[in-house]
């Protein structure tokens, strides 16, 4: 055959989520708690800015790095919110969602055979991204006993001391775990000691309910070895507009931009104008959405407590990660729950082996559906 697929593509199995999605699609009465995106629409001001940009005919490419105005707004925003100091000219790159930023960064930073330690359970794209970039993924499991927080011990025992890069995501998809500055410091110390670069996906930074977000890049000696990713999908409910950004020292952003400019050219212009307006005027809407997620989070955690289902107290993103309350595998339990009760939750092992025995439960769903889904869950485990 003239078109032979590449080894590194064949090496990546299909997403575990994909199979579950197909199962869920087979019936139309499903209440889905398997959704990794907000159930809100983007704030109206942001949508209006997108419409306005189209009406004005702003339909051409922007600079590869993104609209300067947007980069300036991002620079001010991350400074205000997270105490991160990145210059708009050389240290910020606007991308087509954080997914593209992570992919471009991996391809810019990974040489063939380089090892990238991925903290698991992890967002489903990290390990494939490492493989596509020619790197070797090294899985670093975190444990529920540690509230799914990363520790130097976990890094040590996984052999991450010899890795080149560390990929992490806090607040975490799928566990909802967060890490404070104090908890990140020993991880930072490990990275400094073993000369690891860090790729820190902070897309859920705004969705943190009991602490303020701390970026690992603000810790001593970390800024020069960290790429911080963030974007508009989660906090601003703009998943479909596909807008993210990467921040790093100039030479690193230049390298990531080299991949980006040949692959993507520039992020969608319409989305960039929407994002600019989101940063300028949508704080109140974000706050209202965060309040609502927090209420749902408390509701779901409390319902699992009442059912006697073990679920550590997730403090970020919009997921909780309960233990499977039966002897079944996560996949078998999730499949049974879907077939018998019409409730979709994602088996934890879709996010790496460390997720086995758990379910990802998204509360980005209205309270009526959440209430019904939790009642059905209870019926399933007692039935």
């Amino acid at each position: 055959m003239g078109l032979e697929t590449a080894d590194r593509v064949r090496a990546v199995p299909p997403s575990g989520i994909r199979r579950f999605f197909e199962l869920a699609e087979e019936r139309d009465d499903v209440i889905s708690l398997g959704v990794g995106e907000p159930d809100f629409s983007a704030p109206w001001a942001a949508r209006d800015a997108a419409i306005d940009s189209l009406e004005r005919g702003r339909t051409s490419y922007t600079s590869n790095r993104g609209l300067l105005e947007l980069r300036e707004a991002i620079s001010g925003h991350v400074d205000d919110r997270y105490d991160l100091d990145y210059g708009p000219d050389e240290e910020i790159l606007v991308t087509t969602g954080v997914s593209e930023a992570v992919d471009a960064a991996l391809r810019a930073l990974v040489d063939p055979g380089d090892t990238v330690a991925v903290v698991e359970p992890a967002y489903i794209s990290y390990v494939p991204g490492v493989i596509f970039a020619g790197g070797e993924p090294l899985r670093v499991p975190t444990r529920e006993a540690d509230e799914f927080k990363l520790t130097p011990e976990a890094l040590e025992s996984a052999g991450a001391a010899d890795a080149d890069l560390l990929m992490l995501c806090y607040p975490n998809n799928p566990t909802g775990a967060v890490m404070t500055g104090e908890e990140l410091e020993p991880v930072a110390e490990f990275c400094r000691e073993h000369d690891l670069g860090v790729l820190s996906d902070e897309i859920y930074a705004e969705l943190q309910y009991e602490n303020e977000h701390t970026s690992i890049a603000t810790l001593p000696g970390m800024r020069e070895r960290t790429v911080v990713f963030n974007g508009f999908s989660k906090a601003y409910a703009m998943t479909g507009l596909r807008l993210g950004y990467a921040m790093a020292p100039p030479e690193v952003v230049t390298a990531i931009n080299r991949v980006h400019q040949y692959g993507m050219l520039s992020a969608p212009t319409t989305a960039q104008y929407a994002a600019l307006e989101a940063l300028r005027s949508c704080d109140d809407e974000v706050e209202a959405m965060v309040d609502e997620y927090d209420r749902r989070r408390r509701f779901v955690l409390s319902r699992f407590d009442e059912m006697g289902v073990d679920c550590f107290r997730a403090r970020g993103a919009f997921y909780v990660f309960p233990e499977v309350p039966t002897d079944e595998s996560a996949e078998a339990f999730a499949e049974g729950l879907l077939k018998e009760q019409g409730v979709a939750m994602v088996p934890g092992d879709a996010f790496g082996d460390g997720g086995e025995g758990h379910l990802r439960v998204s509360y980005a769903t209205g309270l009526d559906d959440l209430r019904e889904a939790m009642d059905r869950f209870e019926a399933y485990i007692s039935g």
Partner: protein
Amino acid sequence: MTARDDLLDLLVEDARHTTADLARMTDLTENEVEAALAALEEEGVVAGYQAIVDWERTDREVVRATVELNVTLDRETGYGDIAERLARFPQVKTLRLVSGDYDFLMEVEGSSMHDVSIFISEKVAPVPEVTQTVTHYVMTTYKDRGVVLDDDDEDDRLSVSP
């Protein structure tokens, strides 16, 4: 935001939240929720609990109108006195003193346009202080107290996504 504010937001969103659900969402105990609600009712902060009904989806004919009212005051009669008199009519569902071209904005409900017209002409207009009424019949309600009516938007997100 205080726990009281949180409870108020939740009740405005859905007054049928059970005490247990309110407790789950606010991290208060059920007893604390009950006590807070009792206090809010006692203080008159929570003045009532009502459903938002889209009457157009029922067989029942409900005619609504908003009525602009101009009044004159004298030494003995203030806005409060007039409001007290008008608010007693069961047909008057909402009554507000407003700034601008008229004094009161009143929402009136009846079983037919004739019913509403008779009420305005025979009960409201004759009130001595009322100098002018302008009645606007409601033709369609799209949003009521923050709730969009006839909103059949499907959740079009993928049922499972990363």
